[in-house]
């Protein structure tokens, strides 16, 4: 696996950084791709491999401005994988939202409940 995997942000897709040594996963910006499954496939593949060889602690950061419902399905998959990892390693998930963006805050709380996984919601 690649140690560092990066996708640059576009007008409608987020910046993604996956850093194996540092145990960092970061997704930020707008996630409105036409085909979310295809966009997130390499991220999910990378993460699946990472699970078997992860460092002792992992931090995942979500700093999203917008995401469409097809992205939410993929984010759910990513958080589910992180939950899997949390059974053997330490995992911290941070979900950022802009001041006043209650929907984004609620989304973080909803994912936490859905995946039964602690997610820290943090105001930017």
């Amino acid at each position, binding site marked *: 696996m690649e140690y560092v995997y990066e996708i640059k942000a576009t007008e409608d897709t987020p910046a993604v950084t996956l850093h194996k040594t540092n145990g960092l996963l970061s997704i930020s910006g707008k996630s*409105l791709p036409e085909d979310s499954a295809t966009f997130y496939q390499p991220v999910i593949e990378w993460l699946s491999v990472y699970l078997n060889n992860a460092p002792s602690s992992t931090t995942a950061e979500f700093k999203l401005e917008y995401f469409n419902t097809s992205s939410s399905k993929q984010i759910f998959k990513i958080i589910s994988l992180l939950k899997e990892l949390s059974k053997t390693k330490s995992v911290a998930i941070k979900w950022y939202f802009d001041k006043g963006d209650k929907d984004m805050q609620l989304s973080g709380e909803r994912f936490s409940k859905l995946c039964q996984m602690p997610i820290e919601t943090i105001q930017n």
Partner: protein
Amino acid sequence: MLSTATYCISGEQLFILFKELEDYNLSYVYKGIFNPNLTDKILSLSETNMNLTGESSKTQKKVYFVMVETLQNITRHQDLTQSEENHAFFVVLNKNGEYSLTSGNIIDDSKTAELSSSIEKINSLDPDGLKEYSKYVLENTGLSDKGGAGLGLIEMARKSGNKLLYHFRKLKDNSSFFYFNTKVHSEKSTAELNNSPDNIMRLHDFTKEHKINLIYQGVFTHENLKSLLTMTEGSVSKNDDLAFKRKTVNVMVELLQNICNHASTPNKESLGKHGILIVSSNDKGCCISSGNYINNSEVNALKQKIDLVNSLNDSQLEDLYSDTIVKEQEPGQKGAGLGFIDIKMKSGNNIDYTVVSCANSYSFLSINAFIAF
């Protein structure tokens, strides 16, 4: 919860408008405040459409030039002190290679005579005369106080190869609404597009009556969607409420991606998914309306989906969301099946829809979502 139907254009009215515009390859109407960012998005929206219809680069350049000049004229001459009803207005229509670009803005009656005579002078000249006149103006006049060189109109006439059309519509209080239209023909243009002032004024009245900020009728692609989203984000941003702006964009994404994924195109050679989008706003909030054809075989399933979402309270809606997100997508399924749930969650209001039965086993579906301030 507010009644979505009360604040939005009715499905029947949306269908009537769609039928009027349907024969155009593209119709785009904007009423509101113009700025360079909006201009960029209108240009990129038109570019995407011209590429889709395979317009020659020569025509594209002409349209582009006239559009830039038209939009810059509006940006310069719009009167931001006016009430929303009198905000500036812009229309692009394209029918089989014939383009009609119209600007509309309020003007003081003391200026109409001079403006008419400038346009009449331009219209009286043949191409050689225009070339001479352009050179003369370039050498002999300074910039006007609004930053224009007076050359814009001459160049629009030269580039388009057509006479400039204009019309003053008298308003109260020593002012008029100035409609200004330029036509551009492509080499293969086959249509005779109706750009009469009456036609444009009817469209303008329709936008005023229904408090419409934006109409887009044409092909929906993912590329277009990005331009439409940024435009809407800009047009609702006069309201500084971040949550409201985000809700509006979120709801619009779901409605537009629905058109991209599910619209049918019964009558046209398919260049993509055909539909209409309207953004309107009033003192209570903002309404996003979408319309497109669907196959009759899909109508019942769709109605059931929306009716179910509308019947649920907040906690039941959360449960449905949870049940749906964990489901694996079926092969060929576009989208996550969460769109309507998300629209109701974000807007906080029921989804209003109308299905009008059309010929050849197709129906026209219109959907309204209303986001309160």
